[in-house]
Structures are given as C-alpha cells and as structure tokens.
C-alpha cells in the first residue's frame, strides 16, 4: 500500500461519490419514468424480480465455486428446501432465511465430516 493518508481518503471519497451518483442520478431522471405507463414501466417493475433471480444465481454460484463437489449440491438443496418449507410454514422471510441457513450449515457439517 503506497498511498499517503490524504491520497487514500481522496480515493475512498471518489469511490463513494461515484457509487452514490450511480445510484442517485437514475433516480432523479427516473422519477418521470416511474410515473409513466407502457412497456418501459412494465420493464422497470420486473427489474426487481429479475435482479433477485440473477442474485440467486451469482450467490449460489459463489458457494459452488468455493466447494465444487457433489456434497455442496446436497447442502444447497437442503438449504433451499429449508427456506421454502420454513417460508410456507411461517410466512416470514426472515425466519425462512434463518431456517434454510441452519439446514445448510448442518448438512454441510454432516457431509464434509
């Protein structure tokens, strides 16, 4: 790490401002889009669902890449089933998440010894 403290702070502030503008500017422009109707509004409304689907693929893919073996598939299946069953029983996203995570942890420990 060869940056001085001042340079480091400047770098972090620039990273933060850039990230913030990437989030803020489309919101400022998008207020008009959000009030509209038609295909573009439908596309915007579906972005949440498609983002969640893409996030599942990426986050599960990361777990798989860390341990690319059959036991990981079983743990992932156990965790997913745990989430879905707990969600059906509790109707609560938080409880379902914790239930699935716990089942994934138990399955991983059992399968990986």
């Amino acid at each position, binding site marked *: 790490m060869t940056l001085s403290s001042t340079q480091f702070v400047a770098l972090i502030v620039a990273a933060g401002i*850039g990230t913030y503008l990437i989030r803020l500017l*489309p919101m400022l422009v998008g207020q008009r889009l959000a009030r509209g109707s038609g295909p573009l*509004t439908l*596309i915007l409304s579906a972005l*949440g669902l498609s983002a969640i*689907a893409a996030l*599942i693929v990426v986050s599960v893919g990361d777990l798989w890449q*860390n341990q690319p073996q059959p036991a990981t598939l079983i743990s992932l299946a156990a965790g997913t089933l745990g989430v879905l069953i707990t969600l059906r029983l509790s109707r609560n996203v938080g409880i379902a998440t*914790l239930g699935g995570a716990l089942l*994934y942890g138990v399955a991983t420990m059992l399968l990986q010894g």
Partner: protein
Amino acid sequence: MRAMNQSTSLPVTAAAGRALMSGLRASLPLAIGYAPMAFSFGVVGIQAGLATWETLLISLIVFAGAAQFILVSMLAAGSGAGAALIAVWVLNLRHLFYGPALLSQLRERPGRLLPALAFGLTDEVFATAMAESTRTAVTPAWTLGVGIGAYSAWVGGTALGAWLGVGLGEGETVISHALTFVLPGLFIALLASALQRFLWPVVAVAATVTLILGWFYPSHVAMMAGMVAGALIRPALQDRSAEPQP
C-alpha cells in the same frame, strides 16, 4: 403502477415513523446476512495492511459489498488508485437500473428522502423492497428503514471485523457454514414470496442468462445482463389472473 402522492416532500409524521420502524424490522434478515460479510471485510482490510480507521472509512463512505473487496484486493496487490477506482465504479454500474425500478413501486414520491434512499440502494436493499412491493404498497420511509438497518449492520460488522476479527474469522462450525448461506437463502425466500405465477419467464430468463454469461464474464457483468434480459420480456407477459372469469 401505483398512484403517487402529489406532494413533493414527505412530512415527518407518525405514520412515516412507524413505516421507518417497520422497515428497520424488515431489515433484520438482511442485516444478519450482511454481518458476516462485513466482518470478513474488516478482517480482509486489516490483513491487506489498512489501518482500522481506513477499513471502517471504506464501509462508511462506499457501502458497496463486492466493490469494497475488489478495492482492497487491488490496493493490496499494488494496483494503481485509478484502476481500483474504475473497478469500483464498473462493478456498481448494475445499480443504474435500481433507482427507477424502485421509484416505480413506491406509493409516494420520496421527496427529501430521495438522497438517503439512493445512498442505501444496495443489491439486498433493492431486492427486499421490490419483493415487499409485490405484497403491499411500499413507502419511502419503510425503504429508508431497510437501508438504515442494512447500513448499520454493514458498518458495525466491518468495525467488529477490523477490531477483533483477525484470527477469529476462520473455523468450521455449523454456524460458520450457515452464515455463508444467509444471503442466498434471503434471495430465495424473497423470490418465493414475491413471485407471481405468470412472471416465471422473467425469472427463468434472468437466471439462465446470468448462469450462461457467468461462465465467460465476471459475475457483475453476467448479473447485469441477466436482470435486464429477464425484465425485457415482461411486456410480452399477461397477468391472466387479473382477467375477468367467464
């Protein structure tokens, strides 16, 4: 499309306060998912040679999980500050789509809350808000509550990791394994609770495109392409449950 409140600013009311608290409560699973990631970031920052305050400063100002790891890794590897900065920005480009999508689902205009909403618009906050919007009208104050909960967990987890974490972040226990599944589990729960039957093609296209492109490109590129591809087919789908029955 929900009708938007015509007022340009959100008055601080008891209702807004209750919505904020409700959002904070709704952020709990997200915060539980963030905490171990943030803890890891704190540990990684110290191991990369950053001071505690420098590690914490990144989480306080940038608040972007994966991008922060990339930033620290590149600096530790001796990359130039300019390259690291561009990597952070490029990695976060997928957030360009989140703001307009979130606004389209809010019950009222965010007004003065908009700058704060934008700051907290991470993948997980966005996903939580969009999933909630399929069940009930989401308010800016509720979304802000989710963002505050997520930010607190992120900064708090980073601080713990930076101060206490070196040597504690390892270990093979049920809990350590379980924590790695919290964020995937949260996304699966959000999808299952938000999905309407006629929108399955959106999910299928987004997941398939992300999976295929993930073999060839970095995950943030695959994810951005996947989410756009999935959303683009939405106008071709019809909600038949909304049609009158014969």
